């Protein structure tokens, strides 16, 4: 590792932080544009002008918006996300459990999906245009084309109802033994795997095929290397950047886009939490969750960028 890389990485991270700040302004502004303010939302029908004024004073809503923004930002940076309007619970505490659950599910889905997708992609390249390739592509595309709720219900029907191997509802809780927890998330993790599999697999296949046209691959073949070794040693390292990108995009999806799967399997993650609070117009929670989702997205993209830089010899050793 040399200093130009460190510099590039530092640049990326700084850009990411800047972007996150911009997003926080957007989120804050967005919730301010909504009709009515938090005080009105809290008091609802029973609002009198007097109680509204009192509550506004109490919540500091009389201050100008930019002051409130910095106040909120200061809170976020010190880990204080405020309290939920609807239930009066501390947001940071409730989100912690939910976020952990979401990450847990995403982690195990990724552990299965990413290697599986890449290996299937490699196999598809090795036997490209043959029946193996077509079978893998066909199945993966089919599983992605079905909506997730359909895959979810099919899994529930066979594994939970017919054969009763795994539970159909994935309620997890603190202090649940690891084995039970794994059993509980088996079906939602499978559903998520099937949803993200094809995208990554196809991208791997396309990226490697692209590299396979190059002269050095031909050289490698002429040297007499076996087809798998050509792919493994020469093609794959050069195709890794786009693969990492698509993997990261799918990881982000596993974390921020799983509302439907959470609902079907009754999994207590972030998606369900967000939806509940949007319906109740619970602005502080929506802001907090929005910011967390943005942070996840941005940081995964930074990681993808950095990984691509590190994996690319031309960027690693600039002339």
């Amino acid at each position: 590792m040399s200093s130009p890389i460190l510099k590039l990485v530092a640049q990326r991270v700084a850009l990411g932080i800047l972007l996150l700040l911009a997003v926080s302004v957007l989120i804050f502004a967005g919730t301010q544009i909504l009709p009515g303010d938090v005080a009105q939302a809290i008091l609802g029908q029973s609002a009198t002008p007097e109680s509204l004024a009192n509550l506004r004073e109490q919540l500091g809503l009389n201050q100008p918006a930019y002051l409130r923004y910095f106040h909120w930002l200061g809170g976020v940076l010190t880990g204080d996300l405020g309290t939920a309007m609807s239930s009066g619970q501390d947001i940071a505490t409730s989100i912690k459990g939910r976020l952990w659950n979401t990450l847990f599910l995403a982690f195990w889905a990724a552990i299965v999906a990413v290697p599986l997708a890449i290996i299937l992609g490699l196999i598809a390249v090795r036997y490209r245009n043959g029946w193996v390739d077509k079978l893998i592509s066909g199945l993966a595309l089919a599983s992605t084309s079905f909506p997730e709720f359909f895959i979810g219900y099919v899994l529930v029907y066979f594994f939970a109802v017919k054969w009763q191997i795994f539970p159909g509802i994935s309620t997890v809780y603190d202090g649940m033994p690891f084995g039970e927890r794994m059993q509980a998330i088996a079906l939602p993790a499978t559903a998520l795997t099937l949803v993200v599999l094809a995208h990554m697999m196809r991208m791997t296949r396309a990226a490697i095929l692209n590299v396979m046209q190059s002269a050095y691959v031909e050289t490698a073949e002429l040297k007499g290397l076996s087809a798998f070794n050509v792919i493994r040693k020469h093609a794959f390292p050069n195709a890794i950047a786009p693969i990492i990108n698509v993997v990261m995009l799918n990881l982000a999806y596993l974390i921020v886009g799983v509302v439907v799967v959470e609902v079907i399997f009754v999994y207590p993650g972030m998606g369900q939490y967000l939806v509940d609070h949007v319906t109740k117009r619970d602005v502080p929670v929506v802001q907090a969750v929005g910011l967390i989702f943005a942070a996840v997205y941005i940081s995964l993209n930074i990681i993808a960028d950095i990984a691509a830089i590190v994996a690319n010899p031309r960027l690693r050793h600039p002339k």
Partner: protein
Amino acid sequence: MSNELEFLSRRVASGKLSRRDFLGRAAALGISAPFANSLLSSAARAAGPVKGGTLKAGLVGGESTNSLDPALFMTQVPFAFGKMWGELIVELSPEGKLENRIAEEIGSSDDAKVWTLKIRDGVEFHNGKTVTAEDVAATLERHSDEKSKSGALGYMKGIETIKASGKEVVLTLKEANADLPYLLSDYHLIVQPNGGKDKADAGISAGPYKVTTNEPGVRHGGERFANYWQGDKMGHADQIEIIVINDATARTAALQGGQVNVINRVEPKIVDLIKRLPGVTIRNHAGPGHYVFIMHCNTAPFDNADLRMALKLAIDREEMLDKILRGYGSLGNDFPINASYPLFTEIEQRKYDPDKAKFHFKKSGHDGAVLLRTSDVAFPGAVDASQLFQQSAAKAGIQIELKREPGDGYWNEVWNKQPFCASYWGGRSTQDQMYSTAYLSTADWNDTRFKRPDFDKMVLAARAELDETKRKQMYHDMAVLVRDEGGLILPMFNQFIDATGAKVGGWVDDPHQELMNGYALAKCWLEA
């Protein structure tokens, strides 16, 4: 019943024969499965409650925004969980009678204005304290306070003073009310230590189960409260758990897979499929809930009585009951009361009559379409029902324009705001309560803007009347007024459709609310 069957069913009840074997032998004897199942449950009931185990319910109607503060209960999960940990002053029995709980006796002055609640001795809170008259008084005070935002505030406003002295709580009402004990059975009025004034969401009361887990929108759990004052009647399972499953298919699958023992809100369209599943029993029964289309009587064009009548005649109630509820309900008659209320009298059924509807529509002088707002959340099948309404009205020459509103915000932006929309009511325990909540001129939830001083007077007069025959006549007259002149189109009363899995014993239909009025987990047991 043949002797052999009776013998077999008793053997199952005592755990010497498996349910499956029993059903197999019953089939061999030529007995149909439903009948054999009913034999089993009667045998189990005769064998008495079984203590122990964990009863689990998978319920729709819980959000991560739920609180344990009883004042804020609105949806089914807090309601049902509240009945587990909470104890009320008085409750309604499945037969519709008053059943005293924390109050041992409820008496009133002759004019029904002063009521005295005698507090039962030796009822204990989960924190070990004894329930006192002061706790009961403080509970009622808190729910009478605007700040508590209590769902019971509407009726509590009618109480002028609340005084605790010794073992009694004396309530003085602003106006006489013969129904006060019924009002006190409201599920919000859970008695809490010091009325919950110290910590409203502590989850401490004197109910059959102590709160052990409270994860709003995910799951709620309780363990049996050893010192529950009527432990022989309730609290059979060692533990109870409510898992929030808002998705209907997931709920059914959980029941089928045996992860929960009870579910609520089975959709009418899949009842016939679920019925056939082994071990699953559908528990459907009539209640006071109803599906409605509501018109504001004070907003054009619905301020015209002929237009309202035209629309009431232009709806095909039978078709709707058949197609939307698949028969799991009963016909509505444009007033919000049915046989599940005390003092109900039958009134001639209004029928679909396109010719008459056409006549009234012409007479109203209204020109053009009528805008009806509808949404999936208004009631299950509301959008389909609105389309049926549109078609039946079209046959009468009335054009209904449908506007489908998003479910998010429907109850804030459309219901009780827009002049014509689809909605539902869960019903109340007495006629007075229903009319006071939604048909008095001053009621916040007067969602038909039915503002009639003569009707208000009738409500107040009936409320103070202690003579039952006279009262019945008064309610009849009120019903006729709402039916013929109000803004309510009530095509059907729905049924509660719950379902239980194998081995659930002790189920008793309760017409007041779903899940045995919320007590399913406390009153049922797991057969051995």
